[in-house]
């Protein structure tokens, strides 16, 4: 096992990783920008290194400084968290070359699956269901038009290097295709530095269902059930739950099997997530593989009892999977609400000092956050300041507990999305589980 791990991230996920390391008896080194010098994740670590100014491209994403920090503190592994360098194949490769273990998949895994069109190709070749779409990158408007006609409108144009909804365009009519193609290319270029785009059928009211997998060095893979992440605003997840209200045991087994085959096709290692789109008739289509730990991983932990960060570290250290598929038992139901420092109606960021921070407690309530009274929410990074997670014997109890916990959560000094979550939890459609990725848009328009 590793003796000392550098946590190349900030905020709640850095603290999450530090907690897991502490429980495993591993020392931790925090990195931080000048803006985060007093952060809880910095104080929680055994050591800390300032790696640059507030701008993350000069600090948290600054590969030379992050690796120098790893060298001067003598760590044997780096945990990248999510975002920042977590899906940077080059960074993973440099780590490998200097003998510091990157806690995640191999750089080849990241490079391969980071190309979304290529990933779909590999999975489709195995005979697994992928969203109908162009076989790979679209090289011209001609190709785009041909592909769209074959698939049928509406279609969605996506960036190959994409993520977070950037570089996407939905096209309903053939005459809009040309302009959308150019716009998507331009946005992909400016956002990701790569103008490659591809095209898929656009589903109306689909669900976003993803399957958590774990794979060891020996090629063994298990899945830990699904997460329903259909409540999204501009492709940013807000509320996640597991099990999905529409996935039954049979469908779970089938999606799990496809997820395992998909990552086996890519010779994937470590933990990862296979994203699917589920249509109204419960047909599911492979979308992509996320090669990092995800924000919403806690709900899977709550229903499986498996600490995903610890497993991620153990797998990276070369340990074989300790469990088989039949050992995975899903108990109860779990929901996560992402609490953002934003105006709950206009979604404008609300940085500032938290004058009073009082997290909820009691049975079935978990809070993952690096905030405390007096913390400052700086404007340079993601606005998520806390994840509120509840667990109950069933969806009913899990929801009742979430409402209770949201009511207890005190955050003063800044605006947060807690009121929005209250409203979502009170929504009759949400309560019945009748949601899709278009739910929130309609909900907010009311």
């Amino acid at each position, binding site marked *: 096992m590793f003796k000392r791990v550098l946590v190349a991230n900030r905020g709640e996920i850095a603290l999450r990783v530090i907690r897991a390391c502490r429980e495993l008896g591993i020392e931790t080194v925090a990195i931080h920008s000048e803006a985060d010098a007093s952060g809880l994740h910095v104080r929680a670590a055994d050591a800390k290194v*300032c*790696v640059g100014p507030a701008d993350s491209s000069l600090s948290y994403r600054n590969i030379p400084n992050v690796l120098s920090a790893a060298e001067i503190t003598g760590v044997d592994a780096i945990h990248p968290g999510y975002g920042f360098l977590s899906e940077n194949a080059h960074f993973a490769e440099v780590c490998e070359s200097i003998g510091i*273990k990157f806690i995640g998949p191999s750089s080849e895994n990241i490079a391969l699956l980071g190309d979304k069109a290529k990933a779909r190709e590999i999975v489709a070749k195995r005979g697994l269901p992928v969203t109908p779409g162009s076989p790979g990158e679209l090289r011209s408007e001609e190709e785009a038009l041909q592909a769209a006609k074959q698939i049928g409108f509406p279609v969605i144009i996506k960036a190959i290097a994409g993520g977070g909804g950037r570089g996407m365009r939905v096209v309903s009519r053939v005459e809009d295709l040309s302009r959308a193609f150019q716009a998507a290319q331009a946005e992909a270029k400016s956002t990701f530095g790569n103008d490659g785009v591809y095209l898929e059928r656009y589903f109306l009211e689909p669900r976003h269902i993803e399957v958590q997998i774990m794979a060891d060095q020996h090629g063994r893979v298990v899945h830990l059930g699904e997460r329903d992440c259909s409540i999204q605003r501009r492709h940013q997840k807000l509320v996640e739950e597991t099990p999905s209200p529409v996935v039954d045991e049979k469908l779970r087994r089938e999606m799990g099997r496809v997820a395992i085959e998909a990552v086996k096709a890519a010779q994937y290692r470590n933990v990862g997530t296979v994203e699917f789109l589920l249509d109204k008739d419960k047909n599911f289509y492979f979308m992509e593989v996320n090669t990092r730990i995800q924000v919403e991983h806690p709900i899977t932990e709550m229903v499986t009892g498996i600490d995903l960060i610890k497993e991620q570290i153990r797998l990276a250290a070369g340990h074989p999977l300790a469990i088989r598929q039949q050992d995975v038992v899903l108990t109860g139901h779990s929901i996560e609400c992402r609490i953002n420092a934003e105006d709950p109606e206009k979604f404008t960021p609300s940085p500032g*000092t938290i004058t009073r921070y009082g997290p909820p407690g009691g049975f079935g309530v978990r809070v993952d956050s690096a905030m405390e009274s007096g913390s400052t929410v700086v404007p340079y990074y993601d606005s998520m300041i806390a994840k509120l997670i509840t667990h109950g014997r069933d969806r009913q109890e899990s929801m009742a507990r979430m409402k209770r916990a949201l009511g207890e959560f005190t955050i003063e000094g800044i605006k947060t999305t807690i009121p929005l979550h209250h409203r979502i939890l009170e929504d009759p459609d949400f309560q019945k589980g009748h949601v899709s990725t278009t739910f929130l848009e309609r909900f907010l328009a009311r």
Partner: protein
Amino acid sequence: MPEIANEPIPEASLTGGSGKQIQELIDLLRRNNLTELEFESHGTRIRVRHEAPVKATTTVVQESVPTSPQQPTHSASTTTSVPETAIGFLTVTSPIVGTFYRSPSPDADAYVEEGDSVKKGQVLCIVEAMKLMNEIESEVDGRIVKILVENTKSVEYGQALFLIDPKAV
């Protein structure tokens, strides 16, 4: 996996160094006829104000400095940043994370000693990062008032390395 280095890991405490910093600031305040010192308890931002007859500037000292005041660099320059401080000394900070060397090789003499006069462009030290030796040069003419880091110690981004008195050439 590499061997674990035997060096002690840097102190984790946030408050450990601030007492010292404050004392240093007070001393500097007295010596330099400063008139104001502000202390914010959360975020531990310390602010020193100087109502000098000519001009008043401000130096912001942040707690990530283990032993001395520092001046954070927000420019993307790859060499040192030496803005003028209120107390008349310039702080040379590390623009990268790495290991501080006072001489080009273990047997060689140090680039500079305390009390030495230095010229603009003169090499003051090396910060090694990723096996690359980065020479840190002085951006002004002046005299080395204090060397703030011991030879072979690790330095983080923005850490103060030297105090230079530009008036004492």
